[in-house]
């Protein structure tokens, strides 16, 4: 990932793609998924049995990991902090929700096209993608950067939340979309479906991880890192910075949309609170905690924070916001590079070599 002016670009890219972190992450994801599947297949009496509810919960974590990946792609490698990624997630979710609703009762008006899965699948990618394209095109063209970009993304998701709360939108108003029964002709209530969705989510995380890794080690990725660190210089050299940003932003929004689409059938509801700015900011904290610009850090952060959330909101609901808020403060002050930073520092001391001291990410 370090920037070197080496001519044999293709070889270098392949090497970077097959780096240790990619392999370890891929291995961990596959082993984790297989372990859950095997433990789930054990008889219910066994002590190691993993229940269907837990599988569904882990499936939900996978979708959160996917969303964190999307945020890390643009925050870590492009330096643009989107406080509105929940909007793309929710749009994907609403597209899926419409499709699921169409399975039980025909939808009115234009929504009736969502009855067909290919259309719905297209919508899951296109709705967030087009919004990101339009929004990003406007923002990057007029060089809205840094904090300003964060604020207007927040305003965007806030405006969308207000809009989806209106009953006139035909999206269920403040209740949102719920009462899902069937997906692709299979009942959502069955345990097999839970497992299938879990596997689908896990595969989606794996594919998105490879995709992001491929992007970041490519020429595009290196230009984007350069943009993050010295935008004016990259522009001056002759790169179209706004195109680079737009490309990554749209890809990131689409990944978030897929995450939302996988999230909805597992949770059974999508409502405007997903658009709330708080959710989007929470996603940023997952990434910050895991470690920016590492990709695997985002996955780790999403898993750790959400596991903590599940445990703590059950055990001591009052303390959860103290802990989440405290995490925000402590991570930004004490662990600017997150868990991934801790890991690499630990590896550095253990193997007695410097692990390529990366430049402090500043944005």
């Amino acid at each position, binding site marked *: 990932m370090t920037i070197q002016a080496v001519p044999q670009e293709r070889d270098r890219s392949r090497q970077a793609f097959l780096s240790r972190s990619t392999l370890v992450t891929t291995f961990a994801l596959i082993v984790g998924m297989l372990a859950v599947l095997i433990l789930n297949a054990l008889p219910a009496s066994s002590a190691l049995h993993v229940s269907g509810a837990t599988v569904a919960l882990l499936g939900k974590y996978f979708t959160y990991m996917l969303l964190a990946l999307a945020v890390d792609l643009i925050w870590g490698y492009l330096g643009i*902090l989107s406080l509105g990624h929940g909007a793309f997630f929710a749009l994907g979710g609403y597209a899926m929700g419409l499709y699921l609703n169409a399975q039980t009762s025909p939808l009115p008006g234009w929504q009736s096209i969502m009855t067909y899965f290919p259309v719905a699948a297209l919508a899951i990618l296109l709705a967030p993608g087009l919004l990101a394209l339009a929004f990003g095109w*406007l*923002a990057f*063209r*007029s*060089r*809205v950067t*840094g*904090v*300003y970009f*964060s*604020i*207007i993304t*927040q*305003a*965007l998701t*806030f*405006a969308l939340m*207000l*809009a989806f*709360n*209106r009953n006139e939108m035909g999206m269920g108003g403040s209740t949102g979309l719920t009462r899902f029964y069937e997906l692709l002709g299979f009942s959502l209530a069955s345990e097999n479906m839970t497992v299938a969705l879990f596997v689908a989510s896990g595969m989606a995380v794996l594919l998105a991880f490879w995709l992001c890794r491929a992007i970041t080690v490519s020429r595009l990725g290196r230009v984007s890192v350069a943009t993050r660190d010295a935008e004016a210089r990259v522009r001056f050299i002759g790169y179209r910075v706004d195109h680079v940003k737009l490309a990554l932003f749209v890809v990131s929004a689409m990944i978030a949309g897929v995450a939302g689409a996988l999230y909805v059938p597992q949770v059974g509801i999508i409502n405007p609170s997903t658009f709330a*700015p708080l959710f989007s*900011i929470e996603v*940023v*904290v997952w990434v*910050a905690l895991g470690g920016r610009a590492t990709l695997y850090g985002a996955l780790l952060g999403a898993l750790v924070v959400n596991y903590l959330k599940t445990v703590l909101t059950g055990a001591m609901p*009052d303390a959860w*916001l*103290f802990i*989440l*808020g*405290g*995490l*925000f*403060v402590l*991570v*930004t*002050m004490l662990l*600017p590079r997150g868990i991934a930073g801790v890991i690499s520092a630990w590896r550095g001391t253990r193997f007695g070599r410097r692990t390529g001291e990366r430049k402090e990410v*500043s*944005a």
Partner: protein
Amino acid sequence: MSFTTGWKGPAPRRRLTIPMLLCLLMACGLGIGSEASAASGESQVQASKGEPQAQAKGEPRALLGALDTGSFQAKGDAAQAIAESGAEQKTRWLQALLDGRLGKERRGDRFYIVTDDSGREWPIIDAITFEDAGTGTRRTVDIFKINNELRTRIEGLLASLSLSAGNEASRLSAAQRLVGEVTADNADRVRGMRDDEESDAVRGQLDVALALYDLQQGDAEALDALRGNLDTRVRNALTPIAAGDSALAAEAQSVLDGIESKRAWYDRAQTLFFGLSAGSILVLAAIGLAITFGVMGVINMAHGELIMIGAYTTWLIQQALPGQPGLALALAIPGGFLVAGGFGVVIERTVIRFLKGRPLETLLATFGLSLVLQQLVRTVFSPLNRRVTSPEWLQGAWQINEALSLTLNRLGVLLFCLAVFAALWALMRYTRLGLEVRAVTQNRAMARAMGVRATRVDMLTFGLGAGVAGLAGVALSQLTNVGPNLGQGYIVDSFLVVVFGGVGNLWGTLVAGMSLGVINQVLQPWVGAVLAKIIVLVGVILFIQKRPQGIFAPKGRTS
């Protein structure tokens, strides 16, 4: 955030009540009518007895006796006779008659006024001497019944009666009641009173009432007196006249058009006021950010929670001083400033100082702080909303005329906002701290070289911004309930206002906040509150794309 839900403009309220009153009156009239017909057999017998007594005018017993008739027309004439008589008790009689509390003994010829008709046994007094007469029931006292038409007539009589007596305020209210109530019966009386009247205000109202009567009689000249009158009753009376086809109708239409356009202007003034008041809330919430974000470059996501702390301080001070909301509010202004400012200084010392030059990290850390502060308030106080009572001089509305009234608490917030802005501006412009803040903003290294203690300036600046947020909280507590989520709703809007106005520019914040408030208010009647908000948000987003430096770009190289 919804500024809109708090609106209770007086105009819609009035529009609601008039039809309701009408319904009520009609319902009463129907009820009385059916009772009257049920008892008609009895009253017809009595009617023949009542005739001769009516001739003895001037004597109280005879005057009241004349009411004892089945014919509502005759009753009306009897009431008129009472009003024109010299009897001292006539106002009370007519009021009792109107309230359905005047009656005659069934087996005898005494007249009673029922003082309380809620139970089965009514306490009664003698109608002529007002002496206590024990109790009566429906069986012993025959209440004089009235119908709707008679009610209107008695109301007119009462109004003209109170016109000739009482102080100016009661005469004025009587004159206002007379608008639209002048009939052939009392027109001459009213005309006479108008000539005797000393007060200009009462005479003006009587002129309107008479002009309306004259107009209904077909007098075109009367229209001039009604030109530009904003009273709803005048407008309602003019509408059927203007619907005709005559020259008078055309004339009336032109007067009506004049009234409508005048009302439209006042409506616009009202919208402007509502907009400015909504804007002043935005400005109050954003102006602290304009200092911390605009001047220091620190993104303080906990700003909304500092507002909340200011509001809770107001609530606490009010709890400590029960029954004295005015004093509590006066103390809350410095109190809210100091408490929120203190929190601000602590936040700056413990967190923000270490994140200098890393705006995105600052954003995240302060967001974490905002969650902690919210939960802290929830744990310490309770998640429930608290109510802060406004002092009396902030309650109610200032009714400028029929079409324009300004809610006092909103007016207070508007003035408070302007005062805070002026104080802040003066502080930045004329004090040593302001000079140092500007120096550190423009060139930190140079300012330090000149002996400015930059870290101290940072702390004070942040404390100042936080304190102003506390002041916003004090103001907000007068408008809405105080709860842990109070500040959260303002954070998105406040940032937009600051960015829209131009970062680091206090005037920009003022103009941006006020204009967003007004635009929101203007859009609302067309598209509804939520859509208006969405349109404003999207509009600002697009504006920032077009002009990232905001309305007022910072001058020089500071950006």
